[in-house]
Structures are given as structure tokens and as C-alpha cells.
């Protein structure tokens, strides 16, 4: 329960960060997608129904705050969670580089899902050329940040688990 609450607060904080402070970073039009990193973390280390709903809710929050059409990011984040969850049994995360690679690939899945849905619902000229650059840049930034975010989340998770064990 405490862990779910922690993740809820972290999710809310990340949404807030993405709409405000992260725009201060000198990355041009790219906003670091920490929400994606959190969804990947859930898919790998915390795969339960609460995490599934959390991924959906975070994507939906991004839709409410930023997207011109509801459901776009909710779909992408749910798909990312599902993809990470399905492949988590064959991934052994033993160093930060692997976590960066997993987040990079997850970001590519998210980008591909967005482009696919975009092409179907919001058909637009020149989508593919622009999208390819966005997907790669966003994936690189997310992959760079992933080891730090993972380390912070693991620390928070193990701290709360320690408290629970002590209480029991």
C-alpha cells in the first residue's frame, strides 16, 4: 500500500516536472520522458495490476494536460508496460547500461505506437521524417536518464520494503 502510494506521488511529481521544470533544460523541443522510464520500471520490477493502472493513468494525465486528442499517450504507455512486462522474463538487469538499453527500446515502442495511432487518427503530411528524429532523440534522452531514475526508485522501494519487514 505504502509502495503504491509512493509510486502515485512519484508519478504525479513526474507529470508536474514534465510540464514545468524540465522545460528549463537546454534540449530544444525534447522534453525528457521520465513517465516512460517509470512505466518501464514498473514493468520490470513491480508488475502488478496497480502498476498497469498506473501506466494507463500516467499516459491519460499526459493526454489531459498536453495532447490534442485523449487516449493517445494512455495507449502508448499501456503498450509500453505490456511490452516490457512480456519481455521482462528474458531480461536480466545487472547493470545501468542494460537498463538504458531497455528504456531506449521501450521509447522506440512508444514512438512507433504514437506514430501508428497518429497516422490513423490524425493523418498528417511529412509525419514519418519528423517523427523519426523525435523518436530517436527522445529515446536517447530517456535512456541517458534511466539509470539515475531506476537507482532512485529502487532506493525508495527497498527503503519502504525494509520498513515493512521491520514492522512485521
Amino acid at each position, binding site marked *: 500500500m505504502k509502495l503504491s502510494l509512493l509510486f502515485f506521488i512519484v508519478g504525479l511529481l513526474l507529470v*508536474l516536472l514534465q510540464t514545468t521544470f524540465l522545460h528549463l533544460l537546454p534540449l530544444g523541443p525534447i522534453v525528457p520522458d521520465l513517465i516512460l522510464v517509470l512505466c518501464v520500471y514498473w514493468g520490470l520490477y513491480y508488475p502488478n495490476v496497480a502498476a498497469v493502472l498506473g501506466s494507463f493513468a500516467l499516459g491519460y494525465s499526459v493526454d489531459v494536460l498536453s*495532447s490534442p486528442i485523449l487516449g493517445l499517450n494512455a495507449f502508448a504507455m499501456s503498450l509500453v508496460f505490456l511490452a516490457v512486462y512480456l519481455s521482462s522474463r528474458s531480461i536480466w538487469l545487472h547493470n545501468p547500461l542494460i537498463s538504458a538499453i531497455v528504456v531506449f527500446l521501450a521509447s522506440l515502442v512508444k514512438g512507433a505506437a504514437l506514430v501508428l495511432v497518429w497516422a490513423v487518427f490524425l493523418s498528417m503530411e511529412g509525419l514519418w521524417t519528423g517523427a523519426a528524429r523525435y523518436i530517436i532523440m527522445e529515446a536517447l534522452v530517456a535512456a541517458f536518464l534511466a539509470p539515475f531514475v531506476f537507482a532512485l526508485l529502487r532506493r525508495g522501494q527497498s527503503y519502504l520494503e525494509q520498513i515493512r519487514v521491520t514492522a512485521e
Partner: protein
Amino acid sequence: MLAFLRKNQVLVSSGFCVLLSLYILTAAARGQLKQDPVGPILLWLMRPLQIGAQAATGWIKEIDQRYATVAGFRAENERLRKRIQELEVERSKLLEAGATNRRLQQLLEFRSHLPSGSITASIIANSASSWFKTCLLDKGSADGVRKGMAVVTPLGVVGQVVSATSHSAKVLLVTDSNSGVDVLVQRTRARGIISGSLDNVTIMKYVKRSEDIQEGDRLVTSGLDGVFPKGLMVGTAVKVRKQNLGLFQYVEVMPAVVSSQTEEVLVVNGEPNQAKN
């Protein structure tokens, strides 16, 4: 059946969420999603946090600027440095007050040229995604902001309100790839549509090859789309190219308003042929 569901609950719930989001997406794209029950609550929850965070962001920017200013005076003695710091703080406050005063005066003056009932609002948050160019305003339907209203500044067009809750509104910026503003070349009255693109370049579409358009031409709203009042500045043509094939010219546009540097805006009801400028 129950045992299967229990065993694969993560997989089943994930699949359900994917399908649910696709359903929402389809309904939203077809315009069947009239009421979003969660969105207004989330926006209501986030609004005070975002206002606070935006204030903190401004504070960080100010600290950053102040540090850069003060760093140049390190070699000077303690008394002078203290005095300079005091003056710097005072100056910064006065400059900020002066700049705010000037902006609001301009906004007030500009407001008199617009259709009646325009609403002054502040930008409280930017887009959470690299894919969309949107921002959030601190005014919503309770203040008279409605979906479809135009968002402008004295410098030109910012965008269009795409959704509004009671105390906030989401604006799709002119630079977003999904936006479209009907414009005229001020010099020749050639028409086109200004839209953003994922290349982070704003372009003017559908300008016929035969039309006269040159780099540096000012592009203003035509007023024909029923959203933006006629004659508002949208941008300047910075690159004009006639490709070997095709009916239209390629025109790159520098938007008149940089949303990241904008703090206050006016939300107006852009009925055609009402603007005076």
C-alpha cells in the same frame, strides 16, 4: 476461467487498458467523447501545483540570471559588492515591475482593438510531451473561456483553445503540427494555411506556385476560419522555395510569438471581420 484470470491478471489488465485507451482514442477522434470525467479533476488537482512550480521556475531563472550578473563583480571589495547586490535586487524588481507594467499596458491597448469580451490569462504550464506544442492557461470556462476561442498577444497569434475546464484551458499552439491558421500574405493577399511540423519548423501550406511571396513577407490572419480575428500577425516568411514538381510552393515561417517567452495572453472570440486592426 477464474483461475486463469487470477494467474494472468497483469496480462489481462494490461490488454484491457490497451483496448480501453484505443476505445477512448477512437471516441475522441470521432468527437463522440463529449464529457471527460477524469480530465477536469486532474486539471483541478494539478493547477495549484503547476502555478507553484511555474513560480519556482521563474525564481530559478531569476537566480540563474542574478548569479551571472553578480559573478562579474567578485573582484570588487565587500562594501561595493553588497551595495551592488542590493541595487541589483532592487533593479531586478523594478525592471520586472516595469516589464510587467509595459506588457499589461500593451495588452490593454491591444484588447481595445479586439472583439469585445476578450479575457486576460496567464500561461501556467507547457506541454508534457515533445510531440505536442500546447500550453495551459489559468483561466477556464468559469471565466468565459470556451473551446475554439483564439489566443493572442499584441505580437500576434499564439494558438487556439482546444479544451477548457472551469479554471484552466488547454491551448494548441500555432507551431503544433495539428494546428492550422488561415492566413494572407499582407503584401499580395495570397492565401495559405500556417501549421507546425514535427521537424520543429512552422510552414505555410497550399501557396500556389503562381502566387507572389517573398522572404520577409508578413503573414496575417485572414479571418475566414472564424477562429482568429482578421489582420493579426502570425509570422514572417523566412524561406520560400519553388520545388521542381507540385502545385504549391514551400514556405517556411518564423512565428511572431515565441510561446516560451510569453507570460500573459488574451483569449478572444474570433468571429470573422470583427477585428479593427
